[in-house]
């Protein structure tokens, strides 16, 4: 606006006012917005305002072949795309009554866990940045890049892999890949004490995150909270253990929980989950050479592939929480209806609105990052 066009608008004096927080705001996660009403700097009302990233996924998927949708699904959640592919593939396999070779199942789990580590490192970085600790962000993003390098060697893509297809995975791992995986795991594990010193036990972080955005277990269950956010309220629910898919029943891992349910607990749960994921990856690296066989069950001509009529719901544990696909087929070459149960749509809308009440404005960004909401998946 040019200065001569500016007319001052007079407001009645008030200590209550409304602010638009986002979408073009450095504190908000992605392209997402909140309308907040403030009293001083305390939030007294908040309303989530999404839709900036809406692409109409569920409608787009109805117009594409079963196999084409594989390229579409990872775009739903950008920081953690692998669970999307796996979950969709599992749904199509269930509809087809298809067996997945054992080696492919182990490879999928390896990919899921690597993706979880990458997503958690990214979240730590984002959360630290909202409390003013930019060094952790630089470290988190740089260490995540090591995992993206592994993905790139393995599948050809850094972020989107399009690697899991109905019936298995696209190809086997390259030679010597497992050594590089364990090397990277060793490196990331050796970095964790540094992260602890810099971030997790840092007094700045502890003071700001403790008692910020608390929720108790009953609220969490009522609001449909899943994943690390639910485990931070003390309930050890994890789809990987309670409804095992792939080969998770043959893997030994623990489910970390914390009781307080505030931003600090949510981040600590992720920190411990990172350790568990490294532990799982090590087991897979040990086990994989002894599992032979093909990595894919052949599927008929994918361009004219009619999936039998029926409906199914499959779910996996993504780094954000429970992710489910409800897929209906009417026996044609395209899905009849796909519904995605994303964890973030619960976390970023209702829960974020509730937890922001009574928080100070500078903590709203922190609450959003501690919930690890993923805006593209909210809007779809």
């Amino acid at each position, binding site marked *: *606006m040019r200065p001569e066009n500016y007319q001052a608008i007079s407001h009645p004096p008030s200590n209550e006012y*409304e602010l638009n927080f986002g979408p073009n705001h450095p504190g908000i996660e992605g392209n997402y917005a909140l309308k907040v*009403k403030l009293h001083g700097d305390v939030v007294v*009302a908040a309303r989530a305002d999404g839709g*900036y990233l809406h692409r109409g996924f569920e409608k787009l998927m109805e117009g594409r072949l079963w196999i084409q949708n594989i390229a579409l699904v990872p775009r739903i959640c950008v920081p953690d795309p692998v669970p999307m592919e796996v979950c969709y593939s599992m749904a199509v396999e269930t509809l087809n009554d298809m067996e997945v070779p054992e080696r492919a199942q182990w490879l999928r789990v390896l990919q899921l866990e690597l993706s979880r580590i990458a997503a958690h490192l990214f979240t730590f970085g984002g959360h630290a940045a909202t409390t003013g600790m930019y060094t952790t*962000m630089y470290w988190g993003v740089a260490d995540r890049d090591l995992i993206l390098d592994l993905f790139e060697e393995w599948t050809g893509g850094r*972020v989107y892999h399009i690697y899991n297809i109905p019936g298995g995975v696209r190809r086997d791992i390259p030679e010597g890949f497992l050594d590089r995986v364990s090397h990277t795991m060793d490196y990331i594990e050796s970095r964790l004490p540094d992260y602890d010193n810099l971030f997790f036990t840092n007094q700045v972080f502890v003071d700001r995150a403790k008692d910020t955005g608390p929720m108790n277990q009953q609220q969490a269950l009522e609001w449909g909270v899943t994943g690390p956010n639910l485990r931070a309220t003390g309930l050890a629910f994890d789809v990987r253990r309670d409804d095992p898919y792939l080969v998770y029943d043959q893997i030994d891992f623990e489910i970390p929980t914390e009781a307080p349910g505030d931003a600090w607990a949510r981040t600590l749960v992720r920190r411990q989950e990172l350790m568990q994921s490294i532990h799982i990856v090590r087991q897979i690296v040990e086990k994989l050479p002894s599992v032979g066989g093909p990595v894919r069950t052949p599927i008929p001509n994918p361009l004219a592939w009619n999936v039998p009529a029926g409906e199914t719901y499959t779910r996996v544990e993504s780094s954000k929480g429970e992710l489910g696909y409800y897929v209906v087929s009417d026996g044609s070459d395209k899905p009849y209806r796909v519904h995605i149960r994303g964890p973030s749509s619960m976390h970023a809308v209702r829960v974020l609105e509730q937890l922001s009440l009574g928080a100070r404005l500078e903590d709203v960004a922190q609450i959003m990052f501690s919930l690890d909401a993923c805006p*593209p998946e909210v809007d779809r």
Partner: protein
Amino acid sequence: MKEIDIPIEASVGQSRTNPLARVFDELVRFCRSRSMFMLHYCTGCGAIELPPAMTSRFDMERLGIQPMVTPRQADILLITGYVSIKTLKRVILTYEQMGSPKYVIGICSCTVNGGMYWQSYATAKQLDQYLPVDLYIAGCMPRPEAVLEGMRKLMDRIRSDEADGWKDYYRRYDWYLGNQQHLFGDDWQTPADVIGEASHYDLAGPGTEGEHTRLLQQCQKPLEPQQTFFQIGGSLEKKGEFHE
């Protein structure tokens, strides 16, 4: 208010004949290309490759590019991926707030032709119909190296005075506005006075005004304070107590 004479960008309009002025222009463009602030607005999924490009591994800062949080101090507007129609309105508002000279980079195939979402009902397919795009970085999504290479290209173009998309927006405002009205409806308006700016920069041409700008003037309403959004929602203290 007293009129302030803001110096007009040197090379606008007629070409300079004074050799000293030309040297000066070149120096200005060189300096401008070496220190750019990029707006921190992540519009689509390509934004996930920006943190690696900005942080220690690829490090954009060594090219002199830094993220900036407000549009008014930014030089580059990055459109990182698909823009849904709701986002596109905000993007245009943001673009018109930025001070000239300003540059738009379209990252990702989705800004070029719609990419993966070519049949989506919610996204705008071709970004250059609504904003003047100086540079496209194609790919789904482009790697950080590609982003850096694109930035280098933009720097070269700024130095050789080819990155003049912002002038194009003033010269052909009517066309851009027509496309925007086609998408958002006839009553679309922004607080910026683009025609006034165009004549200020001496860039008003035959395409600046036309049928669409006339439509804009017909539908234009004076700016009003926004209605408060929250009808309910209690206050923590009673009103007035705060002052006592």
